[in-house]
């Protein structure tokens, strides 16, 4: 393992370099969902990164999926960037992220910011974002500035650190454990 240069700021620099080179497989492929999990619960992120597959009948998950599939149809299109991240673009050019509820706002925001950061850093495309909660008829504009850029990069470091662990982060009771997809594997 080439661990040299994976500490500190260079972690992000190295990640950017690898993502720009479309012929190389990144060591850790970070998706928008992983950024969300990092913000919500790093243990959840670890299980997800190990491909732990859980029964998707859980109600919250199904509802989320369905809202995402059917809202704003016709106004937005899905793009796969280098086959690595998938994001939705509105006809107006903004990147859109649709969520079932605003209960977990920070993770959703981080995910969207990551997309904006990715477009900017890897592809040199500057875009603004919009976070939408169709069930609540709410939309919130999201922009990439110095602070949010720092938040994204800090999170990238965090994701890589978690995913490279041999064992998951320790069990910790959180308020949303009861509605988490991984509850049954995490707590049994």
């Amino acid at each position: 393992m080439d661990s040299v240069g994976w500490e500190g700021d260079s972690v992000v620099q190295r990640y950017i370099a690898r993502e720009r080179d479309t012929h190389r497989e990144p060591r850790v492929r970070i998706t928008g969902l992983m950024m969300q999990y990092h913000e919500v619960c790093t243990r959840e992120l670890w299980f997800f990164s190990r491909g732990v597959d859980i029964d998707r009948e859980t109600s919250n998950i199904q509802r989320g999926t369905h809202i995402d599939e059917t809202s704003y149809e016709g106004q937005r299109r899905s793009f796969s960037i280098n086959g690595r991240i998938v994001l939705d673009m509105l006809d107006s050019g903004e990147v859109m992220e649709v969520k079932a509820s605003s209960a977990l706002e920070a993770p959703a925001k981080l995910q969207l910011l990551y997309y904006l950061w990715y477009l900017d850093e890897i592809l040199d495309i500057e875009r603004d974002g919009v976070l939408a909660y169709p069930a609540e008829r709410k939309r919130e504009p999201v922009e990439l500035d110095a602070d949010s850029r720092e938040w994204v990069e800090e999170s990238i470091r965090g994701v890589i650190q978690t995913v490279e662990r041999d064992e998951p982060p320790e069990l910790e009771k959180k308020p949303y454990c009861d509605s988490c997809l991984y509850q049954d594997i995490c707590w049994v």
Partner: protein
Amino acid sequence: MLVIVVYDVPAERTRVYRKLLRQKLEHIQNSVFYGNLTEGQVTKLKNQIDDQLVPEDSVMVFEAETQDYVDYTVFGSAERPGSRFT
């Protein structure tokens, strides 16, 4: 949760709802469906009904938190709904 769906739609549109509902619920009478679904399945079902709806259609969805709250009596030859045996 316990779900009962009934519909009253023009004859040529019954097929649309029958197909949709038979995938999730037991077809207990002509336009009556019964079953136990998760909250997520119910939300999806309602969205799917909504997607199919045209002005002359009428569909009703009854829900109860659990089956325990609903008593029913079966008259006639029909089997009790919810049987796991064929």
